[in-house]
């Protein structure tokens, strides 16, 4: 096995330190003011915070590390990675969508509007959009829908149409649907309760979109099964794709190598850091 972190390509400065431009951070850890922290359905909560210009410059697919308050009887030590659900550089706000699943998110749940939250970001390599594309497909399940959400606005800004295939256990647990529709996207909900979320049905929908010329690229997050369907179709039709991946993290900025995953790069298995080389990776290089 070899190791690879291609994103680190710093060049030595040609000029002596004294004549360099003043150093400026592009990632910040800061205490942000919470504007809203409200339930959007039985599972997910929507958190909005006021933040600095640097934090609000977060791009689709990037994430933040949140220093969660301690719920009673628990002491989450590490920050918790959280996909960016939205970023507004004008209002200087960032948004997150989270499900209460552990000590960290139980702590987040406690924060009241007007309270504070220590956020660190924006982190990682996000999605990239090619101006040549006319129509892309976003396929997500569970928390992956939150990760894909900022794509809707970014695609619209680039004049790219989006079809979103969103998967959940039940229709009422789907998130981001209204957000995508508000940016002009077509949304195809598929659910376990309606028996429409299986890989076979999703593949049928995707083949229909490809045949209709509505799939210049795949964007996906939140399901290994659905990722494999898209990988097969991407190979069959020669289409590009990007996948946002998850892994347990500690530092979030490429220091500790706890969040590594294997990737297949031209037949060779390489090891990359989800936090720093990703979390968005080439669809065809990703391994489940």
């Amino acid at each position, binding site marked *: 096995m070899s190791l690879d972190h291609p994103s680190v390509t710093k060049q*030595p400065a040609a000029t002596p*330190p004294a004549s360099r431009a003043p150093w400026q951070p592009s990632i910040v850890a800061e205490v942000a003011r919470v504007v809203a922290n409200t339930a959007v359905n039985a599972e997910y909560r929507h958190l909005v915070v006021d933040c600095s210009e640097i934090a609000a410059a977060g791009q689709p697919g990037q994430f933040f590390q949140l220093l969660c308050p301690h719920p009673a009887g628990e002491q989450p030590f590490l920050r918790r990675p959280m996909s960016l659900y939205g970023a507004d550089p004008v209002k200087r706000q960032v948004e997150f969508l989270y499900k209460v699943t552990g000590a960290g998110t139980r702590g987040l749940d406690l924060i009241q509007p007007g309270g504070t939250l220590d956020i660190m970001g924006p982190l990682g390599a996000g999605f990239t959009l090619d101006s040549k594309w006319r129509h892309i497909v976003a396929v997500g399940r569970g928390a992956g829908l939150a990760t894909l959400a900022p794509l809707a606005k970014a695609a619209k800004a680039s004049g790219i149409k989006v079809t979103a295939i969103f998967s959940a256990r039940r229709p009422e647990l789907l998130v981001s649907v209204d957000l995508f529709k508000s940016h002009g996207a077509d949304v195809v909900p598929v659910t376990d309760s309606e028996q429409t979320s299986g890989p076979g049905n999703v593949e049928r929908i995707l083949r229909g979109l490809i045949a209709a010329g509505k799939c210049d690229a795949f964007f996906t997050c939140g399901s290994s099964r659905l990722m494999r369907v898209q990988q097969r179709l991407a190979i069959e039709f020669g289409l590009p794709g990007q996948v946002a991946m998850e892994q347990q993290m500690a530092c979030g900025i490429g220091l500790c*190598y706890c969040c590594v995953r294997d990737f297949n790069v031209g037949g060779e298995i390489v090891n990359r850091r989800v936090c720093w080389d990703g979390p968005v990776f080439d669809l065809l290089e990703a391994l489940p």
Partner: protein
Amino acid sequence: MIKPFSIDLSVDVGGLTLRNPVMPASGTFAEGLDKVIDFNRLGAFVTKTVTRELRAGNPLPRVVERPGSLINAIGIPSKGVPHFIERIIPQYAAYEPPLVVSISAPTAEGFASLASELSLPGVSAIEANISCPNIEEDGKAFAMRAESAEKVTRQLRAATKLPLWVKLTPNTGDIAEVARAAEGAGADAVVVANTFLSMAIDLKTFKPCLGNIMGGLSGPAIKPIVVRQVFQCAKAVKIPIIGCGGISSAEDAIEYMLAGATAVQVGTATFLQPAAMVSIIDGIEMFCLQREIKSVTDLVHGVVIEEADDQDLAWLSPPT
């Protein structure tokens, strides 16, 4: 604001002058941190440990959190020496702080040949990680025993003219004896200490929380133990001590210096607050200003022990 007087933050650590006593702990630092902090503020750079062999690292999960602490078993992923020389060392050339290269090897001979090969322009010191509890079978390491620490340090000393820092493990019965052995064999400084060999078990699955079963404990929880070890080593050796263990604030760093450390390394705190090292540097300066301490070196081993009798310090008679 006009300062009442300027504070001299510089320290001499084993043949190397640092602009201030704060540097990263090996394994918790990489070039990407320059997006968060100004690298030219640091006292030194310390690289992730490089090994001669290619190492993929340990199976996942590689970290688990506990109250006030983190257990890691990353497993020292390493892309080997040519990659390190061609890709890592040049990344620090544009910055002012000296580059300290952390090395590890499975044998004393391996340590020596690696130290020799990495004694290159652009490298200011060698830190020999003779203590990482994950690297040797069942957590054993050179620095667990004075004899093996002495042997590897002697070979390292013969292999490099660069300042040689030896990083000790806290997982030993008498760390002061190991520090003395490293000093006797020619180390220019000792780093006290590394992570504590530890374990966590998942009560849902009854399985260990880490892929490697055991890992190294770091974070605020270990600080008082390592402050004690620095204090013990400071009484045993004349070479400088670099304190490392659970430092997350200027107060923590000052406590280490009072116990006997000339400089400090900050690791796990950077995972929580990526600008922790800069905050610590600023906080040390502020402390010295407020206390009218002209040179940060005045703090070193500044702990005031009123009982003069060493027998009392061994706390053989507990409070009644």
